[in-house]
């Protein structure tokens, strides 16, 4: 059981923390086809935080993430992003959210550059072309920027997907099982990238099924069971075995 290294609080991260709560759910519930998935959740995530959401399959962690991204409306209760209530209509709130999933959400027939330029333009950035090429350099993909994305390996696809999620420099990054299907080196580089982004002041909400990894990466862990919060603690005092028992019982 590796113990979690303490998190150095970098300067930009400290600034972020002053901004107060980024994500807040107020008695949030969600039922799909009559089955209650989330029941009366009151969760608050401060800016600059690095939170892992854990739970068994069907415990509602992905559903919670989708609701936080404003793509799926809650059945009852509401969510507050960056301080004001978020609904599917709050377009400018969505501008400040980046989204990664185990599906890369890229157009396979377009090249990496075209994908990034498209999303940059969609986000209404001032200089989409320059921004796209800078993101390509940062993720080390300039060499293959012109090839259609369908020929990329899973690791490279995920890198382009992350570049897409960060093209508009969001403050809140939602990652739903981003490590699925990645090989070891890609997992390591993604872990490093997420830690780097968190140090740069971005709030990260990571949905993950790998408890060990989540406790190592995140500062705080929220375990969902039966749609309710079973555990909500900082990871420094949590041990994988405890969390495992919570998740499985």
């Amino acid at each position: 059981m590796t113990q979690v290294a303490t998190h150095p609080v970098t300067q930009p991260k400290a600034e972020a923390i002053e901004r107060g709560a980024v994500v807040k759910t107020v008695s949030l519930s969600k039922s799909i086809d009559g089955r209650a998935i989330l029941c009366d959740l009151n969760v608050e995530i401060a800016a600059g935080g690095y939170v892992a959401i854990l739970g068994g399959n069907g415990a509602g962690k992905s559903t919670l993430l989708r609701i936080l991204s404003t793509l799926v409306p809650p059945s009852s209760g509401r969510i507050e992003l960056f301080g004001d209530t978020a609904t599917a209509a709050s377009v400018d709130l969505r501008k400040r959210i980046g989204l990664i999933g185990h599906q890369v959400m890229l157009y396979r027939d377009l090249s990496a550059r075209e994908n990034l330029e498209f999303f940059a333009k969609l986000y209404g950035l001032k200089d989409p072309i320059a921004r796209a090429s800078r993101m390509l350099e940062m993720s080390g993909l300039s060499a293959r920027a012109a090839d259609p994305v369908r020929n990329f390996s899973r690791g490279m696809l995920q890198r382009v997907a992350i570049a897409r999620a960060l093209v508009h420099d969001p403050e809140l990054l939602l990652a739903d099982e981003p490590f699925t299907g990645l090989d070891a080196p890609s997992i390591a580089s993604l872990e490093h990238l997420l830690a780097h982004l968190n140090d740069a002041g971005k709030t990260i909400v990571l949905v993950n099924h790998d408890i060990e990894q989540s406790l190592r990466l995140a500062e705080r862990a929220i375990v969902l069971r039966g749609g309710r919060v079973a555990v909500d603690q900082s990871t420094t005092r949590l041990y994988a075995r405890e969390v495992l028992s919570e998740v499985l019982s």
Partner: protein
Amino acid sequence: MCSTKTIFTRFYWLATFVLFGLAIATVCTYTPTEATMGPIQKIFYLHLPVAISTFLACLVCFIGSVGYAMKHDARWDRLAASAARVAVILCSVVLLTGMIWGRSAWGQWWTWSPRLTFSLVLWLLYVVYLMVRMSIESPQRRAVISAVYGIIAFLDVPLVYLSVRMLPDIHPGSVSLAPEMRLTLAAWFVPVLMLTAGLIATRYAIETQTDAQTPVDEAAAAAPGRFTWVGEVM
């Protein structure tokens, strides 16, 4: 333990049945045969009330669809579904009686006359509504798609009516009705409308019961746990 509700329903159905008997009696004995078209015109007393009821059932389906669109409450969706089923049954009767009338009056079972074509298209629209409902599993998704289709289908009905009138029409204009005929028509309208309302209400009650009893299917509900935002495409 006969609650007042069951008493009322029993009385309602009995009254409908009796009124139907009465209407059949009037059409057999009391109504005079129409001069120009002869006895075949007597189908009119069933054809018209059922046609109007079909339109009303489609209207109820539209109201249910709009209700669900606004309120997202499963009750509206059940109302729309019940009304659509009844509309299809009624429309089948309209088609049948129309075809029989056509066969007797002009010798062929089917003519692309405006009235017959309109009933056929209406029938198709709402049969497709039922097919759409049958081919979607998740109740929530099914309700959304049925509501949208219900709205679009009903908005299409006036357009169908207008476009169908451009077809060459050999159907005679509406013939003037003698007072006795109007009385028979009224005698038929009441029971048919009561039957329509009764059918929709009964179907609605059955759907409410079946929904209440279906144990929530764990597997289907767990599916959205995975990150498939494009609906249940996986």
